[in-house]
Every structure is written in C-alpha cells, then in structure tokens.
C-alpha cells in the first residue's frame, strides 16, 4: 500500500479536474464527488498508516519512485514520494480534517451557486498539500507549495465579486510570492553548493558543508516559511485571507496550509543543525510572532480575524519550537496536529455562528448564543479549553511542552524565548476567553433581524468530531511519549535537557497565567456589559485593532519607495532615453524640412542649381588638376 501513496495526490487532483471540466450538469451532485475524493485519500492514508505502524521504526521511511522528472546533465531529478512518519502525520491531518471540512462545506455552501467550483478548489488544495508533504525533493515540494498558494488564492477570492475580497486574495498571493522567492533562492543555493535538490542528497551533503552555506540556505528557507505560515514580517496577508468562506479559513488558513512553513523547517532539520544562527533566528521570529499575534487577537472584534490572529500566534509557537532544534521538532509537529484539530473546530464553530446570525462577524453583536446554539457552544468550548492549554485537553500536552523546551538553554536565550512563550500563554487565554465570552455568554446584542439557530447535522457532526479530537487527541498521542517516538526516525533523538526552571514551576506559572487571562476576560466580557460599538481606546488597543499598523508600515517602507522608484525610472526613461530618440528623429525631420524648401518646382531655379553645380565641378576639376 505504501507504493500506492501516489493515489493520495492523484485522486483529489482527478476529482478537481473532473469537477472543473464537468460543467453545470454536475451541480446537483458534484460536491459529493469532492467529498468522496477527500474521503478516499483519507482511507488510502489510513491503510498506509496502519501498514507503517506494523514496520520497525527504522524501516518506516519509504521512498516511492514515480518517474524521471528532470534528466539533465548536472541536475538529475526524479519525481518521487517520501513516505515517512513526518509526512504520514501530515497526510492524516490533511485528509482527516480535510474530509470533515468537505462534509461541513456541503451544508455551509448549500445556497452558493458555485458550490461545485468550491469543491473543485478544495480538492485541488488537498492534492497540492499532499504533494507538498509527500515530495522527496525540494523542487517537487515547491510544486505543491505553489499549488497550495494557488488554491489559497482561488479560495480567498472565491467571492471575488466583492472588490475587497479580490484584493485580499491578491494580497495573499503577492505576500506569498516573497516567501516563494526565499524557497527559490534556497534551492538555487542548494544546487550551487551541493548540486542536488532531493532530500537525501542535500541532507547528506549538508553534513560536510560550511556553516556560512548552511546559514544562507537556512535563512532563505525561513523567508519561505514566514511567507507561507504568516510569520513576522510577512504576516499581513492572513487577517485579510479571512475573506474566504469559513471552511476555507478552517482548512487552509488554520489547520494545514499555514503550517507548511513549520513542516519545511522541521523537514530541513539537517540544514538547521549546521546553522545555529539561522536556528536562533527561527526561534526568535516564532517568539516575536506569537506575542504579536496574541496582541492583535486581543483587540479584534471580527470573530474570524481574531481567530486568524490566534492562528498566527499559535504557529509562532510551532516555529519557536522548530527553532529550538531536536528537542522542539516533535513538539512543533505535535502542536501543529492538535492545533489543526482545535483551531479547525473553532473556525467551523465560527462558521456555524455566522450561519445562524446572517453572516454577522462582529462579536459585539453576538452574546448569549449558548442557549441558541448548544452544540456549537459545547464544541467551541472544547476547542477553547484545548487552545488555553487546560489539562487534560489537547493543547496542554503540546503547548506546555513547547514552553518547557523554550526554557532549555544557556545564557539569556531561554529566559527570553521561555518568557515570550509563557506570556503568550497568558495572552492566549485572555483573547480566546474574550472571544468565547463575547460570542456565547453575556447579554444578547443581536440586531433585530437575527434569529440564531443551530446548524444542520452535516455541519455539527464534523464540529463534534473535531471537538472530540481537541479534547482527547493530545492525551492519546502524549501517553507514553507515543508521538515523540513515532517522529523520532525523522526528527532525531533528543537528549533530555533540564530547563532553567523546574518543570513544575513552569507548569504552575503557565496555568496561573492562563487562569489570570480567563479571569480578566470573564470580568470584562462575561460579567460586564459589552458595548455594541467598539469604545474609544488607548493607543495600544488602536494599534492592535489595526494589526500593529502592518499595512501602513508595508505601505511606507516598501510600497511608497517602490512606487517612487518606479515613477523616477519612468521619468528618467522619458527624459533621457525617450527624449534622446525623439530629439534625434526630430533633428532629421527638421533637416528634411529645410532641404525640402529647395524643391520648389521652379524650373529656372533648378537650372540655376545645375549651373552652380556645374561651375563647382569644373572649378574642382580645373583647380584640382584631375
């Protein structure tokens, strides 16, 4: 079955092509084809997983050769798949959560005339994402990388009849291009230094490469990861990406695609092993982004944008863990998986709320929904407890380990990284509780035409399954270090290091901060009345509401100078190059005009000209003695 893993990619891809080419006659049942394709991929993945679990842990990496892709003189590259515990983890996450979200979308998109197109794009995304994680070379990974970028673009702009949604799609695409450039540069460096792009050769060559080479590659890969995973300074697209339909936000912009950057870093572990500077940069970026995202999430009133800020912050945790080296890799992926469950669940919950509230997204107009939407309230609540890191829910097992690992090290680094992770946990508790209480508790602040109701079973069942995952998956995988052992063949064995603080102290401090965050949110948004319009606020809150002015900064630092540069170049082109050509041509035209005057049609003046010419010729002949 492991040799048939290409089916994972082929089935959704074929389904996507079928749905796109099939035309309107597929409208009544086409979406079920999409669900079936995703479900088939899940079943194939499940069988492969069971087979892999039966193997000895050292034999679990399985290479599948597909075809000779680029047979060149210096670059011989085969397209192949690498099926190992890491890629298998992603396959299961993508296909399982993906299938649930496909199912949810059937109901969520029921009244949308282009539901078939939506499912075609979703299938395209699943195929591209699986190609990304299964590829056995950076170049094939890049194909998937671009594929998910395309699917993300198409789905963010799915309702592109609204200009601002189309703009959001463009923004995501453009920002991602910067990250893609990082990946292209990294591949160029790999080819220059090592002459190869497949994982095996690159990682083998990386052991003998110099620190400078590995640092350059590592930083270029980090740029790629930042673009895809919405990490600082390329984070600005994620908030706007919420323009897409909510299932898209759940699948692509919470559970899977945005975590591709974490996958890239963990997959490239042998490169980062030899480049401590790049590794530290990764951790620093992660720590910075997790605080940044949390601060933004604290001020957002749009439920989806608050969740997007939370995603950014949680991926910050994963990137931080990935930047810690072998002690963090497994926990980065662990948190990625649990986050995939609870965040997708919460996004689906948000979608359910919007479904019942006429697509309202302003949390200030929610409130008291726990009575109207019990299932949504309970499932969202489980996701909320999971992201808070309350034991025994999933997030506790993954996030707490990251915080613990961040405190390992020497000098100031563990205090800074660990401190950021610790404070981030408190902030997370505050903003998620704020979101939860504003939506489901307090007084109803609905507009008059809103009659909240529970969503149909097709939507609630996926939410319930994801909520169960949010609750127990972490415990299940953490028991006996099951998940760490599973990933060990890929991420390497981590020596046990003691954090600078005792583990118990860290855990108690984390839980205390979480409790503090929840209590503060409860006081402000659960007990007290929430104003229906955002009140005037301090400068810090205004900054957070505006995404820390990221758009203004981008505009001021990159867009304005770029615009002025191009304007200057256009002016220089017109003033120098164009005018030189114009003036030369104009000169010849004027010369022609003046010569033209001699052609006046007067026979006698022609005769005079001839005579003068004749005289000159004679003079030359006579004087020159020719």
């Amino acid at each position, binding site marked *: 079955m492991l040799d048939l893993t290409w089916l994972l990619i082929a089935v959704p891809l074929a389904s996507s092509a079928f749905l796109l080419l099939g035309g309107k006659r597929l409208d009544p049942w086409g979406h079920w084809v999409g669900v079936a394709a995703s479900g088939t991929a899940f079943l194939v993945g499940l069988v492969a997983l069971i087979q892999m679990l039966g193997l000895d842990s050292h034999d679990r990496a399985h290479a599948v050769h597909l075809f000779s892709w680029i047979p060149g003189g210096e670059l011989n590259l085969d397209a192949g798949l690498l099926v190992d515990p890491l890629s298998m983890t992603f396959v299961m996450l993508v296909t399982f959560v993906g299938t649930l979200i496909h199912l949810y979308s059937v109901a969520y998109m029921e009244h949308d005339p282009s539901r078939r197109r939506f499912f075609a794009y979703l299938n395209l995304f699943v195929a591209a994402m699986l190609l990304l994680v299964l590829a056995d070379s950076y170049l094939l990974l890049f194909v998937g990388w671009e594929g998910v970028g395309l699917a993300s673009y198409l789905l963010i702009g799915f309702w592109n009849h609204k200009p601002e949604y189309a703009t959001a799609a463009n923004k995501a695409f453009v920002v991602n291009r910067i990250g893609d450039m990082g990946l292209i540069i990294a591949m160029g460096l790999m080819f220059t230094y090592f002459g190869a792009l497949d994982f095996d050769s690159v990682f083998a060559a990386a052991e003998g490469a110099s620190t400078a080479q590995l640092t350059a590659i590592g930083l270029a890969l980090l740029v790629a990861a930042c673009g895809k995973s919405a990490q600082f300074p390329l984070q600005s697209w994620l908030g706007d990406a919420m323009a897409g339909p909510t299932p898209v936000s759940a699948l692509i912009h919470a559970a899977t695609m945005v975590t591709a950057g974490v996958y890239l870093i963990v997959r490239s572990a042998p490169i980062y092993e030899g480049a401590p500077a790049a590794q530290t940069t990764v951790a620093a970026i992660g720590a910075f982004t997790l605080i940044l995202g949390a601060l933004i999430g604290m001020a957002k009133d749009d439920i989806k944008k608050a969740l997007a800020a939370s995603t950014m912050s949680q991926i910050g945790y994963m990137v931080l863990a990935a930047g810690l080296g072998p002690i963090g890799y497994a926990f980065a992926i662990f948190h990625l998986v649990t986050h995939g469950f609870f965040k997708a669940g919460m996004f689906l919950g948000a979608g359910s709320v919007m479904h019942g509230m006429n697509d309202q997204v302003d949390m200030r107009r929610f409130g008291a929904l726990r009575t109207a939407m019990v299932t949504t309230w309970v499932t969202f609540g489980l996701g909320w407890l999971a992201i808070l890191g309350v034991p025994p829910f999933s997030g506790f097992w993954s996030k707490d380990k990251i915080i613990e690992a961040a405190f390992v090290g020497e000098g100031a680094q563990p205090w800074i990284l660990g401190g950021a992770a610790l404070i981030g946990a408190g902030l997370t508790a505050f903003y998620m509780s704020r979101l939860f209480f504003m939506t489901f508790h307090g007084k109803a602040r609905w507009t008059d035409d809103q009659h909240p109701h529970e969503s149909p079973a097709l939507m609630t069942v996926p939410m319930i399954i994801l909520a169960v995952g949010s609750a127990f998956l972490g415990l299940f995988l953490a028991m006996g270090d099951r998940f760490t052992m599973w990933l060990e063949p890929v991420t390497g064995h981590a020596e046990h290091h003691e954090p600078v603080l005792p583990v118990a102290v860290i855990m108690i401090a984390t839980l205390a901060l979480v409790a503090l965050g929840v209590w503060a949110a409860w006081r402000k948004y659960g007990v007290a009345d929430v104003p229906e319009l955002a009140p005037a606020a301090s400068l810090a809150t205004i900054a957070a509401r505006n995404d820390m002015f990221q758009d203004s900064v981008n505009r001021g630092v990159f867009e304005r100078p770029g615009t002025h540069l191009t304007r200057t170049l256009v002016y220089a082109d017109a003033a120098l190059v164009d005018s030189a050509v114009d003036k030369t041509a104009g000169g010849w035209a004027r010369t022609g005009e003046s010569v*033209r005057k001699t*052609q*006046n*049609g*007067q*026979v*006698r003046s*022609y*005769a*005079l000209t001839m*005579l003068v010419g004749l005289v000159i010729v004679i003079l030359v002949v006579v004087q020159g003695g020719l």
Partner: protein
Amino acid sequence: MDPINFVILASVLFAIGAAAVLLRRNAIIAFMGVELMLNAANLALVAFSRIHGEIDGQIMAFFVLVVAAAEVVVGLAIIIAVFRARQTISLDEPAELKG
C-alpha cells in the same frame, strides 16, 4: 587670327545662353538660350580642333548638331503641349516638379 579668340567668343555665347535660360520667363526664349549654349559648345569644339590640329572636335560638333536637331523637335513639342494644356508657356507657372 589667333584661334583662342574663337574660344573666348564661345565662352561669351555660352554665358549669354545661360543667362537667357536663367533669366527669361518665356519658354521659347529659354529654349533659344539652350540652343545658344549648344552652339557655343560646338564653336569651342571646332576651335579646339583647330588649335590641336586634330579632327576629333569637328566630328564631335557634328554629333552635337544632330542631337541638337532632335532636341529641338522634342523641346518644341513639349512647349506646344504645355501651351495647349495651360494657355501659357511661362516657365514660372508650372510648379508641379515641386518635391
């Protein structure tokens, strides 16, 4: 008599002919100027033939006479055609050669 005098006379005749072509508006008069220049050239050829004691110049003069006769026929025909078309033979009128 010194044959150089014939050369001087030829020069004078040529200058008169050239002046007639350049200064007169009437096509017939200008045409006569052309004839005068041709004959001045003939005279110069014959005079040089005499000076050098060779026959070549005189042979050349016969050729010129023949060409001049043909030229008169064509030239007068053109002038008459122009007159029929425009009711004038002023050289300044037709400016159709204008570029």
